[in-house]
């Protein structure tokens, strides 16, 4: 950050993005039309990406846009497009599990409210200084290691990669067998 730069992370932007995210999430659940739901989800994901940017985590924000909003949602839409929307919209939107869901969300809300009300001590009393430039490099160091040393998560990262590779191979084999 250059000296004299005005902070972008103003409360106004925080509430704007947070509000958009929540509205998007609500719309996503309540829309009967699956494509509208998907579009609402994209809105939420983009708002979350904006929140990451405000936390000076541009890399995470970029990845969020590329992977979730760009890649996964396109595939989602791709699949949804081929589903018969008219039939789905006639079906019951919520199944019988809704009391359980309501209970779970109420519990979560209670947890949040409790934490907010009681636990001033749980939260840091001020925002940690977040150096903008070091963020991306920090992730790289954690994942790949720095200056010849193995990173904190290198092993876990490689294991995850391997797992994904196996999943890809499995998917290929499953579709191949059908043909």
């Amino acid at each position: 950050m250059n000296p004299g730069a005005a902070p972008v992370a103003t409360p106004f932007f925080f509430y704007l993005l947070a509000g958009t995210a929540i509205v998007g999430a609500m719309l996503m659940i309540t829309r009967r039309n699956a494509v509208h739901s998907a579009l609402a989800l994209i809105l939420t994901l983009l708002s979350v990406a904006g929140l990451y940017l405000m936390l000076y985590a541009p890399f995470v924000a970029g990845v969020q846009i590329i992977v979730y909003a760009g890649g996964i949602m396109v595939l989602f839409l791709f699949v949804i497009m081929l589903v018969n929307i008219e039939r789905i919209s006639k079906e019951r939107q919520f199944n019988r599990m809704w009391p359980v869901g309501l209970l779970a969300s109420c519990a979560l809300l209670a947890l949040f409210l409790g934490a907010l009300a009681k636990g001033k001590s749980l939260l840091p009393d001020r925002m940690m200084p977040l150096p903008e430039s070091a963020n991306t490099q920090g992730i790289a160091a954690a994942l790949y290691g720095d200056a010849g040393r193995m990173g904190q998560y290198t092993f876990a990262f490689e294991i995850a990669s391997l797992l994904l590779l196996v999943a890809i191979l499995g998917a290929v084999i499953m579709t191949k067998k059908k043909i």
Partner: protein
Amino acid sequence: MTDAKTTDARRSDGTLPNAVSTRSHVIASHLDLDTPEKPYLDSNELILNMGPQHPATHGVLRVILKLDGEKVLGTECVIGYLHRGVEKIAENRTYTMFNPYVDRMDYVAAISNGLGYCQAVEKLLNVEAPPRANYIRVILTELNRISSHLLWLGTHALDIGAMTPLFYTFRDREEILKIFEKYCGARLTTHAFRIGGLQYETYPGFEKDVKNFLTFVPSKIDDYEALLTGNRIWIERTKNVGVISGEDCIALGVTGPVLRASGVKWDLRKAQPYANYSDFDFEIPTGENGDTFDRYIVRMLEMRQSLRIIEQAVNGIPEGPIMAKVPKVIKPPVGEIYHSIEAPKGELGYFIVSDGSTQPYRVRVRPPSFVNLQALDLMVRGMLVADVVAVIGTIDIVLGEVDR
């Protein structure tokens, strides 16, 4: 998701009928169209209505495609949008009056249509056009063949996505149309020939114009070959696309360049020479694989062979009359005749029944495009939507002739 919008009176249920043929070797694909109709998206099938207003159906052809994703499971052609009842009109006109009507069938090769009709009536009258008339007829017919093939090349390339050749071929076709215009006043529906020969003598400078064309066009054909023949995308788009074997071609009655590209060396100009084609030295180009690429190559070579014929003809036009002795009122004796010629698109036949009056009792036109179009279903099964467009282009149909 709605189903195919079949709003007109035909086939409102959107179902597809049987395949073209019951012969086992003709059905190349194992896909069966007889499965009971299921809701489209449950069975992953999509009915796509291509045409009658579509950029690549060359007029008002309507093709109903049954698709699995982009793969074609079956097709049905709906034709007749341009039906004008040419055969009925013929029965109500005199032989001479009907002559201009034949130009309106295959309007991009009107001169070939006229040649076939005039020769059929001449045969019925038992007269022969004089040699000079025959030479000029051959020149004009072959020029017309080149113009038809040029039009085909341009539109076919456009269908496959190369837009530039269209403009080049139209430039060259323009030179041919200029010769037609100078000769008979019309560019497209020329009505160039009369029963018994020609009405007009060639205009001064006709031979010079034709010779100019002969020097001008070979380099242009080279250009097209340079643009397309070696082009990787062009090869990928045309090789092994719409393959049809020579056996299938014969069984389905497919003639013309499509038949020759499948390896059958058959051309009516050689097999049963008419006019004075036997005087000229030319070859019949053939292909091997019967795919779209071979058909392209065959047509390119045919243009060059046509140039050869024109060159020989224009250098050997004899002097003499241009009209045989035919009565002013044409009244052929009772009888019937079938005469066919090699039109740019295949065998064009006329079956004429005379009852001794001035009007033909029945004229039947055997249109090459109509019969060739039947092979579309066989050629596109198992291919992709993009190939349907390429195959419609490569069969080279003219809807005026399909529907008549």
